[in-house]
């Protein structure tokens, strides 16, 4: 079958679907505390060369013992490049800060700038930007699921009274220093794996940076999804999908003509 275009168009349609899936996930999480938007990246498949078909049999020149000049010329008769479609190469995570919402709740923490809070989960230490913390029945600082938030000295035991948390994450009860929140900053935050529930997992030995993000008490970081950008992405995905479908249909029609009309006796 010579209709390469069918597969090229189909690859574009599949890519647009993934793009749409990502947009939908961003929009679904537009109100999720600490959510970071995603955007798909795509690149073209390897381009191929089209060559002219010529009815020349490969034969060796009787004198030189090499391929004949005629055959070499025919073999090198390249018409040009032909792309063979597109593929999703990755999903980029936009780590820019989300808007801050003032909640006044002393255990609501937001990180301004880069970095993550470290949380002890049953699946190992995970990282999150969602600082909607609370305390558990033992007075420890925990996430909404009850996973313990880690300080420099492990889980953080809170006193009964309200605590003050400095921009560097130092926790004070009155004048008494208790512990510091772990702030973890990665050299390559895009290599983190999203685990859902606002958690990111880091590959082992992921290089870290000295933390720079400022901890803000009584605030929460909203999702950094911008509805307008997502709408544009959505329209682009839809229209590109539509165009690829038209290309596919045209290719189909041409093949149909080839089969049904070309061979018909006049």
């Amino acid at each position, binding site marked *: 079958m010579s209709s390469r275009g069918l597969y090229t168009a189909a690859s574009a*349609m599949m890519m*647009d*679907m993934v793009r*749409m*899936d*990502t*947009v*939908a*996930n*961003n*929009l*679904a*999480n*537009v*109100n999720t*505390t600490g*959510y970071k938007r*995603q955007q798909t990246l795509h690149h073209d498949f390897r381009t191929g060369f089209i060559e002219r078909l010529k009815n020349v049999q490969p034969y060796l020149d009787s004198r030189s013992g090499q391929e004949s000049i005629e055959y070499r010329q025919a073999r090198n008769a390249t018409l040009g490049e032909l792309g063979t479609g597109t593929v*999703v*190469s*990755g*999903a*980029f*995570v936009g780590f820019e800060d989300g808007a801050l919402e003032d*909640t*006044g709740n002393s255990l609501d923490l937001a990180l301004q700038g880069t970095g993550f809070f470290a949380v002890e989960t049953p699946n190992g230490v995970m990282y999150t930007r*969602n600082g*909607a913390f*609370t*305390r*558990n*029945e*033992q*007075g420890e600082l925990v996430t*909404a*699921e*009850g996973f313990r938030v880690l300080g420099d000295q492990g889980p953080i035991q809170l006193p*009964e009274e309200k605590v003050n948390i400095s921009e560097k994450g130092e926790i004070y009860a009155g004048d008494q220093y208790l512990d510091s929140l772990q702030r973890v900053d990665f050299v*390559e935050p*895009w*290599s983190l*794996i*999203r*685990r*859902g*529930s*606002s958690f990111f997992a880091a*590959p082992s030995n992921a290089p870290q940076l000295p933390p720079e993000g400022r901890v803000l008490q009584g605030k929460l970081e909203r999702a950094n999804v911008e*509805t307008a950008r997502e*709408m544009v992405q*959505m*329209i682009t*995905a*839809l229209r590109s*999908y*539509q165009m690829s*479908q038209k290309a*596919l*249909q045209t290719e*189909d029609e041409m093949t149909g003509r080839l089969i049904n009309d070309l061979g018909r006796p006049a």
Partner: protein
Amino acid sequence: MMRALYTAASGMKAQQLNLDVTSNNLANVNTTGFKSFRTEFQDLHYQMLRQPGSQVANNILSPQGTQIGMGVTAIGTPRFFSQGDFQHTENPYDLAIQGDGFFRVVMPNGTFAYTRDGSFKTDANGALVTHDGYYVDPNITIDQNATNVTIGSDGTVSQTVNGVTSNSGQIQLVRFVNPVGLESLGKNYFRATQASGTEITGTAGTSPGFGALAQGMLEMSNVRVADEMIRMIVSMRAYEANSKAIQTSDEMLQIANNAKR
């Protein structure tokens, strides 16, 4: 079928819940001692199409993976236990707590319930009861001939009968390590759970953090109408955006179906 359809549907469901919570906050804007709720969301699981760090060519690792999210879910509706505003009523049995404490009352089944609603009354025998007739614990009894009932900031109740002032008990407060973990029973009552921890008893005014009592005052709800309005607008617009995602996914599926004529 498309993931986006279900993803966007989860978004719409989440925003609907958000609006439910907001409406309940607004409905209770004038409820004594009401503490407002908020909805907490989290992203759902991710489908891994390509692992970050996977080999794309000889010794070249992909710097980022491809992970497709599956939407959003509500993780909880925690209450926000900030202080509500005070309303002056001049009713001697109206009490407001200026701090983190709760009143303890006895339910008809003998278990304890906790409330911030201090609009107490006396029953036929002079016992201090809530608006539902539940006894304040420990019991406080007001003499039927008492003329002047004073409740101090530490909860001490004194009454004057026939010109003689006497002390008739002290209202105790309780608090919880994690008040967010309390179970709401409705009618302004809470019940202790494993998440809240067991009650810690203390004296108003003196034990740290419990707060002082104010007689003749009621604590109004801590619902901030402007905040709720903003939440309503945000959830409405988010709902709209997600419905657009569903429409678009639907259109894409239609286009896919029309590819074959």
